[in-house]
C-alpha cells in the first residue's frame, strides 16, 4: 500500500482523473450547444427585460447597471448549475466517479472547472455587449470582464455544493436557489463594488483582491463539500 511505486501512482492519478473528467465534460459541453449558450442568452434576455422595466433613460440605466449585471449573471449561472450533476446522476456516470479509486476531490475540481470555463468564458467575451446595453463606459469593460470571470468561478464552485446535495431530489432548481443564494452575498457585494469603484475612479485593488481570494478559497474548499454532498445523494 505504501509502496514507493504506489505513492508515485497516487500523485499521477490525481491529475489523471482531473484531466480525464475536465476533458470529458468539455467534450460533452461542446456537443450540446445549450450548455454554454443558454446561460448567455438568459443573461442578455433578462438585461433586456430590466431595461424595459427601468426605461430608456441612459443615466438611470447606468446607475443600476452594476446591480443588474451581477444579479443576472448570478441567476444565469445558478440555473445552469442544476444540470451540473443531474445528467451524470441519471446516466450512472456519477456512480462510476464515486467508485473510482482515484481521489474524488480532483475529479470534482475538474468537473466544476469545466463548468466554470463554459459559463465564465462566454460571460467574459460578452461583457462589452453588456456594457453597451447598459451604458457602462467602454474603459471599464476590461475590469467588468475580469470581475465576471473571477466571480463566475466562485459562483460555479460554491453553487456546485447546492447542486450536489439536491441532485437526487425531484425539486432541484428552486431548492438550489434557497440554499445557495445566501452564500452568494459576498460575490455580489465585491463584484458590484468592483464596478462601482471603477466607475467612481477609485483604486479597485481591494474588491479585486477580495474576489481573487474568495475564488482561491472556493476552489480549494468547495470540492470537499461537493464530494460529501454527492456521496449523500448517491446513498439511498
Amino acid at each position, binding site marked *: 500500500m505504501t509502496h514507493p511505486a504506489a505513492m508515485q501512482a497516487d500523485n499521477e492519478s490525481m491529475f489523471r482523473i482531473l484531466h480525464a473528467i475536465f476533458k470529458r465534460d468539455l467534450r460533452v459541453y461542446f456537443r450540446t450547444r445549450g450548455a454554454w449558450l443558454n446561460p448567455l442568452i438568459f443573461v442578455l434576455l433578462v438585461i433586456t427585460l430590466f431595461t424595459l422595466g427601468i426605461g430608456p433613460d441612459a443615466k438611470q440605466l447606468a446607475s443600476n447597471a452594476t446591480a443588474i449585471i451581477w444579479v443576472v449573471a448570478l441567476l444565469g449561472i445558478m440555473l445552469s448549475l442544476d444540470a451540473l450533476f443531474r445528467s451524470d446522476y441519471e446516466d450512472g456516470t456519477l456512480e462510476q466517479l464515486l467508485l473510482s479509486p482515484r481521489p474524488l476531490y480532483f475529479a470534482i475540481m475538474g468537473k466544476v472547472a469545466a463548468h466554470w470555463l463554459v459559463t465564465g468564458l462566454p460571460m467574459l467575451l460578452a461583457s462589452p455587449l453588456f456594457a453597451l446595453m447598459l451604458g457602462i463606459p467602454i474603459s471599464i469593460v476590461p475590469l467588468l470582464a475580469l470581475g465576471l470571470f473571477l466571480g463566475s468561478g466562485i459562483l460555479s464552485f460554491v453553487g456546485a455544493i447546492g447542486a450536489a*446535495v439536491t441532485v437526487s*431530489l425531484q425539486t432541484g432548481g428552486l431548492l438550489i436557489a434557497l440554499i445557495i443564494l445566501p*452564500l452568494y*452575498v459576498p460575490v455580489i457585494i*465585491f463584484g458590484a*463594488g468592483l464596478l462601482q469603484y471603477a466607475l467612481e475612479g477609485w483604486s479597485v485593488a481591494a474588491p479585486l483582491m477580495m474576489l481573487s481570494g474568495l475564488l482561491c478559497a472556493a476552489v480549494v474548499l468547495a470540492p470537499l463539500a461537493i464530494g460529501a454532498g454527492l456521496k449523500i445523494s448517491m446513498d439511498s
Partner: protein
Amino acid sequence: MANWQWFHRLGSPKWLLATLDRWLPWLLSLGLLMLVGALAWGLAFVPPDYKQGNSFRIMYIHVPTAVVALAAYYAMAIAGAVAMIWRMKVADMVMRAIAPVGAALTFLALVTGAIWGKPTWGAYWVWQDARLTSMLILFFLYLGVMALYDAYSDRRNGNRAAAVVALAGTVNIPIIYKSVDWWSSLHQPASIKFTEQSAIASEMLQPLLLAIIGTYFVFAAMVILQLRLQIVLSEGRSNWLAEYATNKLR
C-alpha cells in the same frame, strides 16, 4: 485517555433521552428565571438612554436573541461536523433540533430590531445597518437548511445533506459579515449603529449580560425539547422506546 465513556454514551439515544429528561426542567426554569429577571431589571430599573430614551430597552431582548442566533448556527455546524466525522447518529439529531430554534431566534432579532428602528431612525428597516442586514442573511441561511431537511424523504440523508450546507454556511458567515460591513461603509460612511461601544454605561450592561446568559440557557432547554422529539421520531420502532413511552404515559 481520561474518560471517553461519556462521548461514546452520547451515541446511545436511550441514555441520552433519560439524561435530557433529567436536565430539561433545571435548564428551562433557570434560564427563564434569569431571562425574566434580567428583562424586568432592564425594563423597569435602568435609567433611559440619554439619546434614545426608553426605546433602548428593546436592546435587552434584541441583542441576546441576535447573539444566540449566530452562536446557534455555529453549534449546528459543529454538530454537523461531528456527525460526518464520527458518523454519530445523535449529532445529526442535535443539528436538526437546533435549526428551528435558531431560525426562530433570528426571526425575533430581526423583528425586535425593526421595531427598535422605528423610534430611532424613523423607519422600520434601514439597509445601512450592517448587522441587521447580516442577520437577515443568517435567517435565509437557516431557511435554506430547513428547506433541505424537508425536501429529503429519508431522514438520515436529509440530515447529512443539511450538515454539508450548514458547514459551507459556517465558512461563509464571517465573509458575509465582513462583506456586508464593507458594503454599508461604502454606501454610508457615517455608520449608524444601535449601540456604540462607549455609549453603554455599565449599569445598562449588567442586565444585558444576564439576559444573554439567560437566553443561552433557554436556548439549550428549547434545543433539548426539539431533540427529544427528534429521538422519538427517528427511533420510532425500537423496543426501549416502547418501554419508555409506556412508563412515561402511565
